[in-house]
């Protein structure tokens, strides 16, 4: 997850930007651009599309940052904006209503947390993420990038905590299985 120092710095930068300091915005982009791009890239198909969506995300931040009353919630809000923009992009591309929830294929109610991954597996996780269904890929990316709580992921994705927990569990299990099938996983 983003360091505590960067988390505090981001809040400070947002307040400075609201006072009209443009340099603060550029610094904010510098801190958040990579993780947001990574997340968007996991949702939209091509690299070019991911860059376009990223641009739209930051345009929304410029226009709507005052809607965020509590700067402490900036990380979750940024991912929420990214998700909405990525979904809008998918909708405009496919010409129909798309929701990541529509492709949820796992039952709710799982209570185990299990399946932890180590830093040594990062390269295989990066490859394995793209093999997962979109809704699982999304929660797992948020989990690996920011270690958001179930509640925070729920707020970003707009689904109940229980569903997030279930998706996360199944996503981790599916990822573990994929990695083991490919002989890439570490036991």
């Amino acid at each position, binding site marked *: *997850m*983003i*360091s*505590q*120092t960067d988390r*505090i*710095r981001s*809040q*400070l930068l947002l*307040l*400075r*930007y*609201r*006072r*009209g300091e*443009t340099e603060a*915005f*550029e610094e904010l*982009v510098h801190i958040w*651009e*990579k*993780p947001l*791009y*990574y997340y968007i*890239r996991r949702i939209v198909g091509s*690299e*070019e599309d991911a*860059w376009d969506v*990223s*641009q739209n995300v*930051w*345009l929304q931040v*410029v226009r709507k940052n005052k809607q965020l009353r509590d*700067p402490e919630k900036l990380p979750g809000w940024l991912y929420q904006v990214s998700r909405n923009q990525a979904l809008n992009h998918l909708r405009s591309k496919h010409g129909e209503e798309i929701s990541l929830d529509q492709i949820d294929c796992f039952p709710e109610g799982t209570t185990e947390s299990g399946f932890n*991954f*180590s*830093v040594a*597996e*990062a*390269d295989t*996780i*990066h490859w394995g993420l793209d093999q997962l269904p979109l809704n699982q890929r999304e929660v797992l990316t948020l989990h*690996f*990038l*920011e270690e958001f709580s179930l509640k925070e992921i729920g707020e970003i994705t707009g689904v109940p905590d229980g569903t997030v927990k279930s998706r996360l569990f199944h996503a981790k299990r599916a990822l573990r299985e994929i990695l083991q099938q490919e002989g890439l996983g570490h036991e």
Partner: protein
Amino acid sequence: MNEPSIREQLLKMEKRSPEFEERFSKEIKKMMEKNLTRTERIAWTLSIFLGLFFVLQFSYVAVTAPAEFPLLGRLVFIFGAVCGGIWMALGVWTLTRKSFNWMRLENATQGLTFGFVLVLMIGLMMLGGQMKNEVTAIHMILNGAIFFMIFGIPAIFTLRINRTESAIREQMLKLELKVSELADDLQKEK
């Protein structure tokens, strides 16, 4: 040295084309200097005429008011004319520039409008107190007071609370940031 986290490793692995990255950086810089849309151009042009109207109207009233008219009243009218002039200048400056700092302009226009309305309301009430005709005086004071209570007081409190809250939060965050940076330095030294 600390071991990199899964997050850092994942971010490092994401391949990014330098051309797209460069284009993105350019777009980010452009976002800071927002271009005016057609509607905004029309709105700013209208605001210049409105500013001109205020300058002419307030100046005219300030100059042609009868000799017994209170000095305070004249000062309020002159203030109105000055505000109109500033508004015009801001409009001309915005239209002649191809783009502008969106946040700064938004803050400036809000401050100018708020200051203008507030001084006019208070001026109206004070002016009422100096009028010789009692009926007119009470009428002016009541009108000013009603507008002041409905629009002025809530606006002043909201603005003050927001600014104070923002300033306190900023100071707290600066302190938190220093502590956090110190903690990071200590961690690195270990």
